[in-house]
């Protein structure tokens, strides 16, 4: 059972980090970024190239992933989403734009990096092993790093000037504007940060699970689920959602294995029932 909980915690930490970027973008702009998973994949491939192929230190690779994605995110906000939000009658239209950018990323990634599953050398070798609890050191390292990034993100949002501005923006766009927050500027920064988080988590996880050009879509969907569990647009919710989903998968796959192929059926059904009872997730704003 310790193993199951350890698996769940590790999974939760990485899920939470994936969900953070998505929820940030959603909170600031009400955009459900379908391309989040593709950004993660791109981050993974950049780390693969810099660390795995060019042989530069892992930290450099991780920075490269984060920075590249931040720039891409900023450009996307400025030239795509801002325009469409301004000109569209219904804000759901951004979903089509997000989906189209997801396809675009898919195509570009496939053309540049090919169709094969890619991996990099381990960042830390060896396995931690005591009485039935087994955890490779690289997983521990990645899990810890993920938690560090989450903590840094929370502190940044809480105490830095841009962080506070973004929180005001998330709470009430109009009020924030009246209070003198540069809405456009912080929307762009927020989008860039969300994309950067996706890139960083992609770079982190490529060391454990590798990367593959086609997994962006499924990762986005999983991230949506975590965000919904916790409540859309709430940082705490994304973290809670990530850990809950991680734990449910870990425990479910062990407890329900006798019954065959039902673990995910149960998880999904539970999610539907849960949301029917709590329509805004654990701690979401009413009207996502």
């Amino acid at each position, binding site marked *: 059972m310790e193993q199951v909980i350890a698996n769940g915690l590790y999974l939760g930490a990485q899920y939470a980090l994936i969900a953070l970027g998505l929820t940030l973008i959603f909170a600031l702009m009400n955009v459900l970024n379908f391309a989040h998973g593709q950004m993660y994949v791109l981050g993974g491939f950049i780390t693969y190239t810099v660390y795995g192929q060019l042989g530069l230190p892992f930290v450099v690779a991780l920075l490269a992933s984060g920075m590249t994605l931040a720039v891409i995110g900023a450009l996307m906000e400025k030239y795509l989403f801002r325009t469409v939000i301004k000109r569209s009658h219904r804000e759901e239209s951004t979903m089509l734009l997000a989906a189209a950018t997801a396809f675009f990323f898919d*195509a570009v990634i496939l*053309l540049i990096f090919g169709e094969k599953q890619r991996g990099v050398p381990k960042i830390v070798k060896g396995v931690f092993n005591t009485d039935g609890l087994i955890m490779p050191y690289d997983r521990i390292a990645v899990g810890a790093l993920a938690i560090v990034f989450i903590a840094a993100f929370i502190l940044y949002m809480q105490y830095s000037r841009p962080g506070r501005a973004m929180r005001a923006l998330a709470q009430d766009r109009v009020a924030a504007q009246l209070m003198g927050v540069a809405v456009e500027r912080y929307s762009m920064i927020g989008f860039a940060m969300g994309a950067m988080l996706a890139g960083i988590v992609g770079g982190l996880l490529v060391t454990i699970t590798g990367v593959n050009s086609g997994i962006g879509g499924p990762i986005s969907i999983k991230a949506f*689920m975590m965000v919904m569990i916790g409540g859309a647009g709430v940082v705490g919710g994304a973290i809670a959602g990530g850990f809950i989903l991680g734990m449910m998968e870990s425990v479910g796959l062990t407890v329900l294995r006798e019954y065959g192929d039902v673990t995910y059926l149960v998880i999904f059904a539970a999610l*539907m029932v849960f949301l029917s009872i709590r329509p805004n997730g654990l701690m979401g704003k009413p009207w996502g």
Partner: protein
Amino acid sequence: MTRVAKAASISAFLAVVFILVPVLIIATGRTDLYYTLTSVALLSIASAGVWLTFFIGRINIGQGAYALMGGYVSAILVVNYGVSFWLTLPLAGLFCAAASILIGYPILRLRGVYFAMVTLVLTEVARLLALALPITNGAKGMVSIPLPGALSIFGVTIIPNFAGMQSPRLAFYLLAVTMMVLCFAAMYRLVNSRIGKLCQSLQQNEELASSIGVNIAYLRVIAYAISSFFGGVAGAIFAAISQSIYPSSFTVTDSINFMLNCFFGGLGYVFGPMLGTLVLYFGWDLLFQTGKFQLLIYSTLMIVLMLFLPNGLLSLGDLLRKRGSNNG
């Protein structure tokens, strides 16, 4: 539009889909277009359902679930119980509508991305159920489903046996297009009747709608049931064409595509989903020549169109009209 102009454009449309298209296909020998257009017609029926849920203010990414369900209902009835395909068609739709009432009643309380998300999960639930339930034949799918038989009423054969035809492709095309015309006619009537206004009232403000005495829960469920009915019918016909159905016949990707069709055509226009499906599905097919750059070009065009026409292709007409009146 005046009544005359309306009648004229409707008859022109009917003439194009029922006469001109088959004639052109026969003249040019491009018989592969029958299937492409059949797909467009069927997918646009399913997309029309999604459009209807947009019309009451809900983002629906769950239509794939009902298409899959409809396909299985029809396939199971035809294969296991020997029911005529023609009877299973409405039954598949009704089954989906009934299921959607049960599912929709609790989840339609959700709004925005939450509803979108739950419906997305629903698609996956449908796939997993199709894998797990014994009646669906699980992972092995249902194959060798017979083609639709003859339909006769009072001894008069209305539709001949598909299996006996030289090419069932034309027959499937006509069937799909007929269903599409019926479906969009019903939608058009719905949207332009008082019910349409009621649905719009839901989309624009549920609280106010409720305060003027509209039973919002009931109306939402009704709209969702009609939407799912469309999905089920489309799925059933697809199962008949491919003579097989698998848990993966309709997936999350399909659900997302249905939604995109609606966006692309325009959420503010009844015929948006039809045009959106035509352009997106056909567009992909036309780009077939570009090989490995297909997806790149497709997605780039989509982004560009989105930037210039964020309210859908049909908003182009409005834009031109506005520009014309400004200049005049």
